[in-house]
């Protein structure tokens, strides 16, 4: 439950981002997955679609709930993790590697500075109660 890898950056809506030059790979955190329970459906955007930071880029469903997924950074979708469509359970098993969702080409790499570090996110989650 409190697994927040230190090489990632985090948002207040419980997404993570792995920055690599101009690219960023994103997904949702262990905390979010735990809140949702068994994931039953992931709805991802198409390649080529652009999003602003904090704009909804997809949804994720469990048996009893639907949640929006917000883009952590502004950019254009270059890749999506298609196996998630047929096997949403991957997210329950490994949300940081196998469970990556979308790769973006950032339009404003400076935005990365505004994301939380692993420690900051851990504290944020703790404060949520």
């Amino acid at each position: 439950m409190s697994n927040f890898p230190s090489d990632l950056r985090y948002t207040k809506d419980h997404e993570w981002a792995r920055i690599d030059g101009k690219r960023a790979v994103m997904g949702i955190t262990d905390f979010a997955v735990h809140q949702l329970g068994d994931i039953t459906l992931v709805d991802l955007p198409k390649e080529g679609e652009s999003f602003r930071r904090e704009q909804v880029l997809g949804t994720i469903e469990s048996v009893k709930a639907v949640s929006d997924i917000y883009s952590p950074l502004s950019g254009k979708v270059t890749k999506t993790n298609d196996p998630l469509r047929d096997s949403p359970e991957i997210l329950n098993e490994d949300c940081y590697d196998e469970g990556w969702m979308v790769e973006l080409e950032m339009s404003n790499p400076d935005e990365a500075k505004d994301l939380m570090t692993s420690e900051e996110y851990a504290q944020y989650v703790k404060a949520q109660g």
Partner: protein
Amino acid sequence: MRYIPHTDADVAAMLKVVGAPSVESLFSHIPESLRLGKPLEIDPLDEAALISHLGELGAKNVRPTMPSFLGAGLSSHHVPVAVDMLLQRAEWYTAYTPYQPEVSQGTLQAVFEYQTLVAELFGPKAVPGLPAPFVSNASVYDGASAMAEAVLMARRLTGRSLVVACGAIHPHYVGTLHCYLDGIDDMGKSALKTVGFGPDGRIDQTALSKLLGECGDAVAAILVQSPNYLGVLQDVASLCASAQKVGALVVVATTEPLAFGVVKSPGSLGADIVVGEGIGLASAPSLGGPGVGLFAARTEHVRQMPGRLVGETVDQQGRRGYVLTLATREQHIRREKATSNICTNQGLIALAFAIHLCLLGKNGFRRLAEINLAKAEYLKARLSSVRGFRLPVAGQTFNEFAVTMRGSAEKAVALLRERGIFAGVPLLSPGFALPECPDADRTLLVAVNERHSREDLDRLALALDEVCP
């Protein structure tokens, strides 16, 4: 108060536990200005008087002295006695919606079977070893609202707004569609285009091609009824081909699902969504309600489907069981983003529909359809050979057809009513009118089914001939 068990002693004991001085005190927190302050003026009746009163009201309605020829969206078939007897089991009709699956497996499995039957009826055949090509939901309110919901679904799936309604569609269904479309966006009435019917009663293909040529890429759904309001079977395959060219979906509506016992299912001909009214096969007509809105679609569209869905699963001990599933589409989870606002559907009537189809079975369903077609063809031939009578549209029908007579349909029907014969629905009947039909004032919609004997059919033909000028 036979439904309210409380004795004075009960009330006193309960008030004591609650710590309230009187029953009235339980309402004292309601502002005085909002209180009714006088009794409701409705007189009570004991059971015997109640039955008597309702019996009197019932007796003020007139029923025909032979099976009626009324159709216009509801053909009242003979429903086996076993259906209603089973429905009267308390565990079926006094049960709640199956949200708690462990105590609702009866309802859940019955709905699963109903879903299977409707998918089989409306869709392509399921092939062993392959996934289901078509799925049905647990039912919606009726055929008309089902058609409206299908159109809204098609718009969501395609991201487009226009709807093309083709041929003679039941005026109640078109009316309902208008109502729903007017609600959903500013386009209102302009979102709905119509294409008429040709001399055969089928879709005017030329007009449709022209329309699609003009605005095809904005069309979400092409909509057709089969058999249509004039009873004519539509060429669904051609329609699907036209639709595919412009990327539109095809919605087929039916008010006579029995037709698909002998006619290819719309799903097998390429339809994307198939909806219909099941009341004729499920229950007594009951002035048209409650019925059952049948709703099925291609499996790949399931997540945009309105209504409840029952799915198969297992319990903690690995035993097969059933649950409501894919509920994230629905209002109680998605709220304003739900596929529909539907909550309570038509569960018990869906059950009745399923039981009847199981009693008929594969061969019985087909045979019943054959009987209906045969009787209708016989009457159609008899009527079209009456002097001055003709069939206004030439297309092949199933168990209902239109006949244009020598004189006013309204007058003929009124005269026959005096003889205890309900001869059919005049095409200009208020609320049921299809004025586009040529000579609509002299045209009658006649529905035939398995209840009509040859004598009944002969009698109608003779009587209509007699009363026309």
